[in-house]
């Protein structure tokens, strides 16, 4: 059982900013079904080029949901430059920490944000691996490697 903090659980059970922004300025999609997670992020800017509204949808585990929710909270009201500087660690810190094995789940939100910003800047739709048979990258090493040799 993962050791989720209360904040992670709270964001998982009551995720903020779920859905799709209407007439978005930027759209980013990352992940794949094969991987067991996928994330779509949309945002809209105000007159001062700050993020006025941002929403997400995710097919992912509890950490992915909580991390996405945290990310949207973190970037609201920020400029794109400021938003780009937010790291996975910021997301994890905001949530009071994530289990080591689940750190990568916070990566997806950030990648979706980058994709959405790129989409805003270039007008191109950057869709990373939404379908297809991509092998899961969540788990860097294979079971056999772990079982073969126990190392510290």
């Amino acid at each position, binding site marked *: 059982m993962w050791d989720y903090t209360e904040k992670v659980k709270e964001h998982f*059970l009551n995720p903020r900013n779920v859905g799709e922004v209407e007439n978005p300025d930027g759209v980013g999609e990352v992940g794949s079904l094969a991987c*067991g997670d*996928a994330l779509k992020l949309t945002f809209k800017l105000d007159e001062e080029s700050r993020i006025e509204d941002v929403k997400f949808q995710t097919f992912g585990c509890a950490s*992915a949901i909580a991390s996405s929710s945290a990310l949207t909270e973190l970037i609201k009201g920020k400029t794109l430059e400021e938003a780009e500087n937010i790291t996975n660690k910021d997301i994890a810190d905001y949530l009071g920490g994530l289990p080591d094995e689940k750190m990568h789940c916070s990566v997806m939100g950030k990648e979706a944000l980058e994709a959405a910003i790129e989409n805003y800047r270039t007008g191109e739709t950057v869709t990373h691996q939404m379908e297809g048979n991509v092998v899961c990258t969540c788990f860097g090493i294979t*079971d056999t490697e772990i079982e073969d040799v126990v190392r510290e």
Partner: protein
Amino acid sequence: MDTIYLDNNATTRVAEEVFEEMKPYFTEYYGNPSSMHTFGGQVGGKLTEARERCASLIGCDPSEITFTSGGTESDNWAISGILAATPNRRKLITSRVEHPAVLTMCRSMAPHGYNVVEIDVDEKGRLDLDQLEKEVDEDTALVTIMWANNETGTIFPVEKIAEIAHNSGAVFHTDAVQAVGKIPVNMAESNIDLLSVSGHKLHGPKGVGLLYVRKGVMLRPFIKGGHQESGRRAGTENTAGLIGLGKACQLAEENIDRENREVKRLRDKLESGLLEKCSDAFVNGDSSKRLPNTTSISFEYIEGEAILLMLDKYQICASSGSACTSGSLEPSHVLRAMGVPFTAAHGSIRFSLSIYNKEEEIDKVIEVMPPVIKRLRELSPFGRQQK
């Protein structure tokens, strides 16, 4: 309302009667059964009784039972023990849907010059018997195929498989960890050679199990040292645990009808209740040949861990894939072997009941689960349209 425990294929509650039976063997009768004094010897008598109770449940002779530290050890031992005793045969046959205790052990034999073959299953999780028949040959040392699958509950035709193995002189082992206590098992009328049982899956304690070895079947010891268990398995016996296992087997024998009537009725009610209220949901496995207590349901477009955590809020315990593989992020190897589409495999939930479950608990799950599914689908980029 208290915890609603629907994860009995992961582990079960130790029955009160089992714990009562174990109690005196910690602080009071703590002797070592190998000892040469009455104080130790008397514990040996209780172990004999425990062995008889286990033998009675599976219909064998007590001498055919060797106690172990659990299902995993029994599985590991059966495989390595037969291969070591049959050095001239170099083929090992298993299935793609075995528990890791079997599958990992089998795969670990490949680098030692073994030809390891994993038989396929179809979309209902049924074993490809034609493929099996083709693969089993004079070089085959062991066929190891589970009696019932832990994730879907699908029951395999073990007697038929044993026959196929024997036709080529191969030994047949079955991992019956999920079968024993849930469906009738009678080795006296069977041609299975080895069979693994785990205590904590049938309301016994964790950390004890047994391996049934038919008289005349030769296998090498796995845990080596002292002369315990007639020299078959070394190490001071977990006396209290094994006495508990014996009692659990006795209770299981008494309860096997309830398991197949009451537990089955509740399982069926849960299953049809959920399928009725949730769209894009379906049952995994062969519903016609299935353990009475298990249902694996896939809810498309959402992810299992998220479902489990939502259920956890209501103190409902279930599992996604098997407890042993959750923690890894890949969809279960069992569902993948069955070709369940990724969108569905990720969102599969296993409910496994026991005689301790009550009708109200099932009603509660049927009530709270559909909104949870709906809610999570609202978060999903794929599932918007679904209810």
